């Protein structure tokens, strides 16, 4: 997809004025954080598990090459194939060639954010394949031609009636007068439509929440059960995963899973967690004949260097989105690409470049809630500041703010001048104000556009101190 991150301000303004979106965001702010809090309260060991999870990922990242090689060896041993890809284009070409070789016409997909990242659907569709998303949220946004607005709840921005409209347009063969006001009716319709797609698919593509080096298994977590159907019914299964998903052992995967669902939806564990290892075995009555893992770098190895390494611990739970005041105000689409919220503001510049994404790290109050709730204890505010510094060094940002800051730096470094200048400005403002406030001030329209600017009253702190007013 074409990123619109460079127009973040305009995107945000549109989002703030969108009544339906705002109602959906209110629902999100009521739901996820409370459920997470309850789940954490039920598990006294939650923080110890977080520490263990962080240690596992740090150890794995430090030995990433070694664990990836072991993972590959184990996949091969189980009869699967591993396809290494440097970037999105290679991954798209690899997946298409697997589909072509399998003479596939129809493809079902489980939810994969890496799939969104490489825009695999468009590529397969452009090459004549019929691709359908099977996660309900992903299916809805695929029909609408929209990107996901949340990494674990892709259609969170939509209302029931919007989903109903979408289904009426997409499912043209069904009776137009059928009632679709209840969520249950929408669910039943999607179930029926998607069931026939599952049964007719030649290739199933899923993502992976984790890869296990010890056994060559891929781990997929869902509540719907769509991943199990996707990896069991078609002849060919393709797992698309980025390289930082690997963990060493089955026990390590269990530790990660204990923090994942609790952080994400506030469930103790998701309904379905599947560990897939190779293709169908002799004697098996079902399962794919072919098991492929597409291992994608796409910017991860570059993140290993320097400031962003800890971001590779991210397990995509979405807790930082659910607790972010900025995300809660503007939703995911404003961020303009695949990943949104605090984790998106860190990842997007790393994956599509700082230039088009430079507004995202600015769109934060650095309040720190994201870091507080992150199961992997990723210092997101520190990373946002890192991107802000990089933007600043690279310039040119607005000439006016650069000039303003230069003047401020000059004055602030000279205490006498500073005191004199601020005193003079304060005195002037106090004299010019009407009823102690300004409805409009030059150079401050960003402030006065939405609220009054209070006029200074009395002297500054240093002047008061010097006059002995010490209380």
């Amino acid at each position, binding site marked *: 997809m074409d990123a619109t991150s460079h127009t973040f301000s305009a995107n945000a303004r549109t989002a703030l004025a969108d009544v339906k979106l705002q109602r959906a965001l209110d629902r999100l702010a009521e739901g996820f954080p409370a459920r997470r809090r309850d789940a954490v309260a039920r598990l006294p060991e939650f923080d110890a598990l977080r520490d263990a999870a962080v240690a596992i990922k740090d150890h794995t990242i430090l030995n990433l090459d070694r664990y990836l090689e072991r993972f590959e060896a184990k996949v091969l041993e189980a009869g699967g194939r591993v396809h*290494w890809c440097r970037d999105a284009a290679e991954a798209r070409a690899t997946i298409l060639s697997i589909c072509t070789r399998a003479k596939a016409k129809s493809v079902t997909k489980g939810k994969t954010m890496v799939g969104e990242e490489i825009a695999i659907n468009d590529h397969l569709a452009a090459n004549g394949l019929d691709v359908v998303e099977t996660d309900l949220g992903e299916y809805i946004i695929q029909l609408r031609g929209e990107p996901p607005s949340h990494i674990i709840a892709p259609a969170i921005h939509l209302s029931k009636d919007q989903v109903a409209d979408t289904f009426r347009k997409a499912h043209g063969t069904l009776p137009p007068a059928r009632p679709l006001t209840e969520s249950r009716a929408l669910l039943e319709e999607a179930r029926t439509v998607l069931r026939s797609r599952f049964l007719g698919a030649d290739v199933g593509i899923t993502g992976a929440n984790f890869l296990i080096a010890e056994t060559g298994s891929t781990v997929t977590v869902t509540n719907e059960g769509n991943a199990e159907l996707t990896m069991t019914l078609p002849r060919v299964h393709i797992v698309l995963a980025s390289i930082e998903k690997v963990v060493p052992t089955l026990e390590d995967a269990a530790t990660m899973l204990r923090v994942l669902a609790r952080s994400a939806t506030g469930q103790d564990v998701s309904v379905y967690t599947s560990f897939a290892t190779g293709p169908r075995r002799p004697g098996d009555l079902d399962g794919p004949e072919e098991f492929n893992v597409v291992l994608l770098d796409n910017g991860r190895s570059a993140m290993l260097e320097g400031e962003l390494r800890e971001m590779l611990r991210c397990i995509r739970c979405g807790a930082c989105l659910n607790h972010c005041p900025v995300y809660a105000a503007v939703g995911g689409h404003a961020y303009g690409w695949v990943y949104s919220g605090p984790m998106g503001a860190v990842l997007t510049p790393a994956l599509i470049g700082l230039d088009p994404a430079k507004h995202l790290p600015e769109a934060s109050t650095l309040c720190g809630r994201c870091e507080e709730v992150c199961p992997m204890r990723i210092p997101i505010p520190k990373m946002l500041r890192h991107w802000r510094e990089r933007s600043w060094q690279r310039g040119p940002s607005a000439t006016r703010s650069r000039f303003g800051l230069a003047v401020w730096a000059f004055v602030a470094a000279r205490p006498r001048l500073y005191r004199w200048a601020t005193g003079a400005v304060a005195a002037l403002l106090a004299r010019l104000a009407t009823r102690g406030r300004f409805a409009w001030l030059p150079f401050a329209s960003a402030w006065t556009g939405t609220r009054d600017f209070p006029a200074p009253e009395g002297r500054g702190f240093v002047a008061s101190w010097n006059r002995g007013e010490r209380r």
Partner: protein
Amino acid sequence: MSVARAAVLSSVRRALGARPSASGVEARLTEPPPGVIPARGRNDSVAMFLEGAARVGTTVDRAASAAEVPARIAAYLAERNLSTAIKLAPDPDLRDLPWAEAQLQTREGRGEDHDTVSVVQAFAAVAETGTLVMISGAESPTTLNCLPDTHIVVVHSRDLVGAYDDAWARLRARGALPRLVTWITGPSRTADIEQEILVGIHGPRRLHVVMIDDGQA
């Protein structure tokens, strides 16, 4: 060996720089260190399993012996007015149970679209979260777990373990992992429409467990 493989690995190595040679990788893989096991997973308590199951809407029935299983299942189906035609996993443990006596019609095989009720045996159950551990194999086709509307799982209480890690230990003892291991905790559900939790989106609308009380592991 592909060009991309070499390129990815070499850029990972370049980024990581100089490191200690082994740094515990081999040791971790051959002798996996235990994880942090929550207290709720430290014993194989039926009560803990039932609590987890109830939280997610899994119904649980108890049978005093394997022979009682068909009658228990028949009662469950009758109570809900569900079909008495069941698709049975081709599992020798299940095959010889008195199904006909319980007025149930059984067919064996993998799951098909038109199957409405399936009966499969679990490899293990995990008390920690009320989770069933299902494995693929000739005797337990995966499709039985994800296609029928009503998914009935038979599990022996001796196969109830405390934590996920205990289930892993049992699977390792069995040999290489099967194609698919699936932890199932409740019926299929979604919250993708206005965050309302609804059950039965793709897979089973009902998940019912019959636990055979034959003692502890």
